């Protein structure tokens, strides 16, 4: 099954199970079914609760917060995650704040879905990896779609938190297969973290969320074949907060080299936050500081050759790991 199909099936299952769940977004109803077709079929089955909205990211997110405040569940699709900038006030100052600013815990079950990332030539305002802009907001949890995490289970977990969540979906994943790992690599998924590993102890640990996992895996394969470097890949479903670090850290505990991969452009990244946390806990054991691997510092260009050169990819990951380990 493709990742996009898995997500579509998850949304349908949730709508069927939760009579108070709404799905809101621009152009989400049939026959269009959303800019990336993720909501296809949903409005036909649930016409009262799957609603196409005006082009009003602030209001859609506010409406979702109003529904959540009333005890309903809401999922918002932001057509391109970049436009979540227009919903930032509702997320930062209302939805996430409401969880605690009224002095006692107020449950808010809402998820804002953000298709993110480049690789499709959409240009600087339609290709950003926005995760870093949402890190560190009290009351706001961040998740990222991955080929290794069943989307239904992830949405169940997000709603169970009873706090607003942003779900980042790397667009290039929609058409990729779920859970594909080829020998000699093995896969386990537990505690919200997927691990892709080899027999024996690895030379390094690579932490790479959903959208970069397949690029990291390609690099791991070439590093193994060409350089005999063995890596363990760690793919967390939740990016923030780091409330149960254990699963994310299990491999780091025995590693001397750690890399964090993300598609974000340089500066104030999620990876820097992960690195800081790992340094606090594991500094004495690491051979060197955690290495950050991300896209270049600049806008994401449109032309294919320029975009390819700017975005983090398997070649970047391969060469950074090789140079770091081999010098």
């Amino acid at each position, binding site marked *: 099954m493709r990742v996009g199909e898995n997500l579509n099936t998850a949304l349908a299952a949730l709508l069927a199970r939760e009579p108070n769940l*709404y799905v809101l977004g621009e152009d989400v109803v049939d026959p269009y079914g959303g800019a990336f077709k993720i909501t296809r079929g949903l409005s036909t089955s649930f016409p*009262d609760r799957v*609603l196409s*909205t*005006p082009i*009003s990211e*602030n*209001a*859609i*997110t*506010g*409406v*979702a*917060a*109003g*529904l*959540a*405040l*009333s*005890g*309903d569940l*809401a999922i918002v699709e932001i057509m391109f995650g970049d436009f979540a900038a227009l919903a930032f*006030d*509702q997320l930062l*100052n*209302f939805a996430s*704040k*409401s969880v*605690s*600013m*009224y*002095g*006692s*815990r*107020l449950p808010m079950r809402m998820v804002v879905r953000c298709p993110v990332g480049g690789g499709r030539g959409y240009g600087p305002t339609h290709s950003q990896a926005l995760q870093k802009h949402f890190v560190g907001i009290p009351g706001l949890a961040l998740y990222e779609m991955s080929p290794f995490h069943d989307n239904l289970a992830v949405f169940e977990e997000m709603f169970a938190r009873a706090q607003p969540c942003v779900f980042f979906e790397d667009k290039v994943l929609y058409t990729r297969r779920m859970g594909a790992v080829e020998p000699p690599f093995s896969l386990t998924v537990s505690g919200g973290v997927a691990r892709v590993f080899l027999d024996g102890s690895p030379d390094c640990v690579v932490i790479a969320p959903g959208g970069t996992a397949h690029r990291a895996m390609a690099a791991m394969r070439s590093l193994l074949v060409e350089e005999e470097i063995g890596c363990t890949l760690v793919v967390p479903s939740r990016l923030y907060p780091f409330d149960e670090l254990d699963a994310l850290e299990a491999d780091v505990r025995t590693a001397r080299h750690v890399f964090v991969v993300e598609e974000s452009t340089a500066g104030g990244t999620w990876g820097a936050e992960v690195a800081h946390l790992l340094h606090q806990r594991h500094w004495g054991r690491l051979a060197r500081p955690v290495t950050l691997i991300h896209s270049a510092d600049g806008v994401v260009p449109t032309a294919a050759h320029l975009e390819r050169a700017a975005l983090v990819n398997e070649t970047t990951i391969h060469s950074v790991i090789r140079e770091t380990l081999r010098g």
Partner: protein
Amino acid sequence: MTRPATIETAELGLDEADLSLMLTIRAFELKLLDLYGKGLLNGTTHTCLGQEYIPVAMEALLDPRDRVFSNHRGHGHYLARFRDPAGLLAEIMGREGAVCNGVGGSQHIHRDGFLSTGVQGESLPVGVGVALHLKRTDPGRLACVYIGDGTFGEGAVYEAFNIASLWRLPLLVVVENNGIAQSTPTSRHLAGSIAGRAAAFGIRHRLIETSDVAEIRRTLEPLVSRVRSHATPLVVEFVTRRLGPHSKGDDTRSAEAVRDLREQDWYERCAAADPDRFHLLDAQARAHVDAIAAEVMARPPSRWETR
């Protein structure tokens, strides 16, 4: 306490309870400025001096199960709904018994279907979401959102108007047009008119220029009933007066301009209408608020336990 969603016109007069409530809100706000002046309050506050009659008039048109969204100038909205000056003062002063344990303070209050936020315009889309919920699960109930004239500068207002009208939602927008936003007069921040902006979205608009509570209720009762029965938005614009500073000590208007506003104040009008009764009720309200303030100030600090 349950009240019918529609109220007989006969019950709508300005009775003693209404006047007492307006006087209590006034005494409460004056007390706050007094406490600030003495350095006894932390942070900031925005008093509704001059606007007290609006939530008092509206409250009789609202059902306890309606949802009310308030803003930075929200003490009157809260007091008209809950008649709980002690809980509100404790919130503002961070004392035990605070409505929100002292976390929210003056402009972030949540209690039983009432919610205030300090970011202009933000609550309108949220109110639209609540109205969508009510339309499906509790027909006949509405979401009432208070905003000021200055808030019409925010795009969120129009995004919300558009959706409320398109989706036919029971949203009652109460505009307290006090002619000024912080220091900027309406003539310098608002092109066209609020009526024109409502009309652009096909939303009915009603201008209220009087401060006579009974007359306000008589005028609005059928319109508010229609919001419920037809699930349709309504904008009610009150032409009102802000008598105090925007927050504290930051009034940029001339003393003369403020004096002119005072002459139009409901307080003067009601005092002149029935001086004996008025002064008795006013003295009672002030004494009541004084006693509450003394009692609340003696309480221990609030505790924030369930985060």
